[in-house]
C-alpha cells in the first residue's frame, strides 16, 4: 500500500486521528486568530465606507463570509455523507454530523447580520430578499439534518439517515436557490445589496481574509467536535482510557 493509501487508512483509526488532530489544532486556531485580527482591522479601520450605503457596508465583512460558509459546509456535509453511506467510513460519518451545527450557526449569523444590515439600507429588519430567504430555507435544511440525527438512538444508523437527508438536501439546494431568486425578481425590484457591483480592492482584501478566517474556524471547530464524538463513542475502549490516564491534551 503506497504512502498515500497508508495515510488514508490510518485516518480511519480513532486513536491515530485523535492524536493527529490534537497536534494540528493549535496551528489551525492560531491561523484563524491571526486572520481574524487582520481581517477586522482592515475591514473596520482601514477600508473606506461604501459610497452608496456608508458605514453599514462594514457588516458585509461578516455577512458575506458566513453566507458563503453556510453553503460550503452543507455541500461538504453531503460529500462526507456519501463517503459514510457508500464505504461505511465511520470517521466521515462523525465529521459529517459534527459539521452540521457549525453550518447551522454560520447560517444563523448570516441571517442575523443580514437583517441588521437591512435595517439602515431598506428601513426594515426583515425583507424577503432572495439571499435572506434562501438562507432561511438552508437553516431549515440544517435543522432537519440535526433533528433527524438526534431522533435516532443508534449512532451509526443515525449518521446514515442524516447523510441520506443531506444528500437529498444538497440536490435540492441549487433548485431552491434559483427558484427563490426567480421568485424574488417577480415580486420586487432587484435589491441594493447585490454583490454584482465591482468591489473596491481595499474592501475586497478584508472580505477574502475573513472568508479564509472562517474556513480555519470551521476546520478547527470540526476537529474539536470530531474528537469529542470519538471519545464519547469509544469511551469504553482501551485507547480512550490510555489517553485520558496519560492526561495529555
Amino acid at each position, binding site marked *: 500500500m503506497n504512502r498515500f493509501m497508508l495515510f488514508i487508512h490510518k485516518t480511519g483509526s480513532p486513536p491515530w486521528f485523535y492524536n493527529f488532530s490534537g497536534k494540528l489544532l493549535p496551528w489551525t486556531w492560531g491561523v484563524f486568530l491571526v486572520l481574524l485580527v487582520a481581517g477586522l482591522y482592515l475591514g473596520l479601520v482601514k477600508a473606506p465606507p461604501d459610497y452608496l450605503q456608508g458605514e453599514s457596508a462594514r457588516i458585509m465583512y461578516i455577512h458575506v463570509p458566513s453566507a458563503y460558509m453556510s453553503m460550503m459546509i452543507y455541500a461538504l456535509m453531503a460529500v462526507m455523507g456519501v463517503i459514510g453511506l457508500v464505504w461505511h467510513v465511520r470517521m466521515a460519518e462523525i465529521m459529517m454530523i459534527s459539521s452540521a451545527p457549525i453550518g447551522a450557526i454560520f447560517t444563523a449569523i448570516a441571517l442575523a447580520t443580514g437583517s441588521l444590515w437591512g435595517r439602515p439600507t431598506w428601513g426594515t429588519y426583515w425583507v424577503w430578499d432572495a439571499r435572506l430567504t434562501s438562507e432561511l430555507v438552508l437553516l431549515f435544511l440544517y435543522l432537519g439534518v440535526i433533528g433527524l440525527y438526534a431522533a435516532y438512538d443508534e449512532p451509526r444508523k443515525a449518521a446514515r439517515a442524516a447523510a441520506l437527508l443531506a444528500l437529498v438536501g444538497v440536490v435540492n439546494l441549487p433548485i431552491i436557490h434559483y427558484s427563490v431568486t426567480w421568485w424574488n425578481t417577480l415580486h420586487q425590484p432587484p435589491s441594493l445589496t447585490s454583490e454584482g457591483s465591482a468591489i473596491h480592492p481595499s474592501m475586497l482584501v478584508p472580505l477574502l481574509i475573513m472568508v479564509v478566517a472562517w474556513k480555519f474556524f470551521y476546520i478547527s471547530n470540526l476537529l474539536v467536535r470530531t474528537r469529542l464524538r470519538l471519545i464519547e463513542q469509544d469511551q*469504553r475502549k482501551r485507547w480512550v482510557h490510555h489517553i485520558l490516564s496519560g492526561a495529555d491534551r
Partner: protein
Amino acid sequence: MDQFRLHHGMDLLQAKPYHSPEFINFKCMISVSDLTLERYFEPVFQPVSFSISTGDLVLLTGDNGCGKTTLIRILAGVLAPSEGRIEWGDDGMIYVGHMLAVKDDLTVTENINFMRQFLGHSETSTAEIVERVGLRRVCEQTARTLSAGQRKRCALARLLLTDAKLWLLDEPYSNLDKHGMIMLDGILERHLRDGGACAMATHGSLRPEGFEYREIGMVSGAAS
C-alpha cells in the same frame, strides 16, 4: 454456556445428509465466517462461523439478549453485519420472525393470497394451505380477530407458499398449541426431506421433536 462445538472444518465432515438415501445436489445454502454485529460500538454477540447445507437443521440457542434474533435477521439479509463474511446460495430464503407480517385488516385467505402473488408461486391451492395450518374455521375472519397462535399459523402458512429451500425461523414454536407444534413438525420434516434446510432460533424447551439437528450456542457480546 457451551461454546459452539463445531468448527467450520469439522462441520463439513459431520454434516451427514438427512435420513433420505441420497440428494441430487447436496449444496451449501449459506455460509458464515466470523460474523458479528456492533451496536452502540459493542459487539451484540461473539463471532460465529457455520454453514448450512441441504438437509441441515441448525438450532441457534442461547439465553435472552445473546443475539439470536439479530443473527437470524442478518442471515435473512435485512441487517448488514459489522464484521465477518456471509455468502448466500442462489436458492431462495423465507423468514418468519417475531413480527409476523400478517395484516390485521385482511382476512386469512386474503393474507395468504397476497403473499402468494408477492413471494412466489406454489401448486398447492390456498384452501389446501389453510387446511394444512388448521385455520379453515377462521379463514374468512380478519386477522385482527385471531388469537396469537392462529396469527402465528397464518404467518407459518407463508412457508408452504414458496419453494424456497432455506427457512429462517425465529422461535416458531412460541404461541403454538399442541396441535400447532405437531403441524409445524410435520411441515418441517417434509421440508427437510425434500432437500430443504432450516435455521431456527429457539430458547428453552420449545424445540422440534425427533429431528437430527446441530446446535450453535450463541454468547452475547458483553460476556467477553
